[in-house]
């Protein structure tokens, strides 16, 4: 019953007035940061870092962590309402969230993503409380071959994201892979496609790509369109509530999404985006009617939304239990610990149980607060759609510019976002889709890096991918997946009508 004692300790820490206040402050800021397109939690957390000097380490971390997972809640709001992902990980929410909005179901979509976010986070926090150390050891044991196999599975899954022509989908993925190659090659230090421009040495900023090809493109594409979508729709409380069917259709997708998000989130360096893409792909693959995806399928928003929230929570597992941060924000939080005289590492839990368990309980409180904060906001956000385009669109562009600038304080990122807006428009006109492109961009560099590293370590022996159980499992899944696709394609060709059903 150790966990009960631990949680009791956590409750005693988290329920002090100070910690509760900072938790509420953190999640509220996080939620707004998430809603504003492009404004990342990294910028918010680094700006608020100096504030945390004056409070104890636990309190500081409670607030900073709140911003991190709070931002995952807000990210889908603009994706649903305006086809504009608040964070790169909510790009995939655009695919079905925006069509739902066009069908006058924006309120339902917002309501359900909030529920999905909450369930995904909550379950993952409980997993974190129960199994953090063993999970962290599992995550750390993942090596380059395993990462590569997992990324390859993700890339194969990208095929399912494609809504229109498979050839154009493939082209979009390849274009994404090419964009991912820009920058310094990790293995050799050689500059690729940087044209001597220093700002490209670290690659193209992902936020610039995501905001450009989704957000700016959307704005440009709608310029000149007089009709505003469902401008006259009445916002009644009922219209915001999901139907029984919506809830029923979401239960398993949310659980599956949570599983995927948790699993991928604990691996350092994977971020929250991959989980939501894979969760979406899985739902579309196993759906009885894949054709409804892209037209407002509820599973298409609830599964990825629970996945990215689960990933945001499980990213704390290696960070807190081993002191190995998965991304820049996690590294910043460990920096905050260092400032307070706590050296992150494998002994943090045993040396500072109050910190770890206080934080775990604060996650539970924070997620409950986010649920309470978000539900009443749904009606308010939907009203955003009533704002006339001539006012709304310039405001969106302004927020995108502020957001993308806040990441590196780099003027060139603003140019990049504009450029990707234009590229996105060209792609839209030609019928190429942005989602596979983005996935290619995210996975490409990681795949290459891990493949080459695995090869270096095994000294060129390809068998390393089949000798390791984890990577062998992924390869088996890839094989299974490909066979399934071929099989269903053949079946469909034989009886086109049945295949549709």
């Amino acid at each position, binding site marked *: 019953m150790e966990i009960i004692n631990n949680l009791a300790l956590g409750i005693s820490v988290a329920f002090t007035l100070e910690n509760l206040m900072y938790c509420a402050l953190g999640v509220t*800021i996080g939620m*707004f940061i998430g809603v*504003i397109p492009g*404004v990342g939690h*990294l910028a*918010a*957390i*680094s*700006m*608020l*870092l*100096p*504030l945390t*000097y*004056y409070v104890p380490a636990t309190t500081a971390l409670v607030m900073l962590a709140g911003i991190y997972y709070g931002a995952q809640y807000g990210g889908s709001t603009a994706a649903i309402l305006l086809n504009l992902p608040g964070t790169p990980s909510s790009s995939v929410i655009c695919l079905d969230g925006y069509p739902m909005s066009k069908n006058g179901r924006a309120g339902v979509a917002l309501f359900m993503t909030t529920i999905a976010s909450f369930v995904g986070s909550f379950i993952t926090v409980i997993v974190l409380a129960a199994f953090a150390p063993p999970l962290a050891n599992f995550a*750390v*044991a*993942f*090596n*380059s071959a395993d990462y590569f196999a997992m990324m390859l599975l993700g890339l194969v899954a990208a095929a399912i994201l494609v809504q229109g022509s498979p050839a154009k989908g493939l082209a979009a993925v390849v274009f994404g892979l090419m964009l991912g190659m820009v920058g*310094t*090659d*990790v*293995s*050799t*230090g050689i*500059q690729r496609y940087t044209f*001597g421009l*220093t*700002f490209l*040495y*670290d690659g193209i900023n992902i936020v610039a790509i995501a905001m450009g090809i989704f957000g700016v493109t959307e704005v440009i594409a709608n310029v000149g369109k007089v009709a505003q979508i469902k401008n006259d729709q009445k916002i009644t409380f009922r219209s915001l509530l999901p139907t029984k069917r919506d809830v029923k259709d979401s239960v398993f997708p949310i659980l599956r999404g949570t599983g995927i998000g948790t699993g991928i989130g604990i691996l*350092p360096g994977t971020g929250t985006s991959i989980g939501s893409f894979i969760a979406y792909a899985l739902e579309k693959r196993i759906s009885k009617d894949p054709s409804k995806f892209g037209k407002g399928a509820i599973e298409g928003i609830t599964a990825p939304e629970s996945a990215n929230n689960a990933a945001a929570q499980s990213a704390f597992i*290696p960070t807190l239990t081993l*002191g*190995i*941060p998965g991304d*820049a924000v996690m*590294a*910043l939080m460990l*920096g*905050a610990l*260092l*400032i307070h*005289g706590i*050296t*992150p*590492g*494998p*002994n943090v839990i045993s040396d500072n149980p109050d910190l770890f368990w206080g934080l775990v309980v604060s996650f539970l409180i924070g997620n409950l607060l986010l649920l309470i904060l978000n539900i009443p906001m749904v009606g308010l956000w939907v009203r955003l759609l009533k704002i006339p385009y001539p006012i709304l669109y310039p405001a969106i562009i302004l*927020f995108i510019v*502020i957001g993308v600038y806040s990441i*590196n*304080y*780099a003027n060139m990122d603003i140019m990049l976002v504009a450029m990707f807006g234009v590229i996105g428009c060209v792609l839209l006109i030609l019928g190429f889709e942005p989602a596979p492109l983005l996935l290619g961009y995210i996975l490409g560099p990681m795949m290459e*890096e891990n493949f080459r*590293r695995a090869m*270096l*370590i095994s*000294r060129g022996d390809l068998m390393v991918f089949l000798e390791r159980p984890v990577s062998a499992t992924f390869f088996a899944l890839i094989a299974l997946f490909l066979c399934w696709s071929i099989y269903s394609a053949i079946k469909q060709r034989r009886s086109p009508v049945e295949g549709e059903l």
Partner: protein
Amino acid sequence: MINIKSLFVGSASVSLIVAGNVALANEFQGPVRIVVPFAPGGTSDILARYIAPELSEAIGQPVIVENKAGAGGNIGADYVAKANPNGHTLLLSDLTALLAAPSVLDNVAYDIESDLSPVTMVSYSPYVLGMSQQHNFESFDDLVEYSRNNPGDIAVATSGVGANNHITTERLIQDLGLDWTVIAYRGGSDATRAVVSGESDMLLNGTTASLPFVLNDQMNALAVTGEERLEELPDTPTFRELGLPGELDGTYQGILVTAGSPPEVVERLQKELADILATEDLQAKIAQQGGQARPSETSAQLQEWMTEQMAELTEFIAGSDIKQ
């Protein structure tokens, strides 16, 4: 929402304005910025955040820490190099990274020797040679012997191509004439992860990152850089004790300023920073980060050190495999 955003900026800067009393001599007009050319949370960033409030109190002006990360520190350094030369824009960075940059990268937009001028060194952090638990070498000599018998078998993780620990690794390889496979990772914590998991066999890294794993028996420490053994690892010898011919170093952090800044401002900065770094409080904070405070006596002293290092690094990198 613009308000929310400006509120952040506002509160962040307000919190840094510590005791804004009027300074006695007025070299400083308006806020001073410490640019950290790396992401928040790293060594340089934390040092800057320790120093900022103290410096602010000393000069009677707000001191703001600004992160301008990218291109291995060169974006932030370039920014300071091209800033208004009034001594109000400081660069706090890993010095070796900047000194090695012209030899490692193709297009460095500024010249560290003519566009930036030194103020003071801040600290020195030794490296620990951390060995994966896959091997149970008793000593550094065991590692060397194994490496000689199994050429190419030992994989050494680095924080990236041209990173400081990459250069130190190559020095070790050259000094001992060994055949190691050098594997670049995406940053220090990724490299640490790789050694803890056993994917790579060893790495040289700062004590803050490695000590917790050594003390938890997830890594073996075989040697440390620097002049003395570490307090926490009394049984681990220094490379010097092991009789290595070359100089194996850790990381040096220092503060530079835009070249052409008024000498009296630079001098005042150097003096104030030396005082700050001499306080017990700051030394303890730096020690906790695995470093040793090393303020320069004069900015000329740092200038001399940098010129020497630069020449040495340029020659070494040109004759090594670091740049492919």
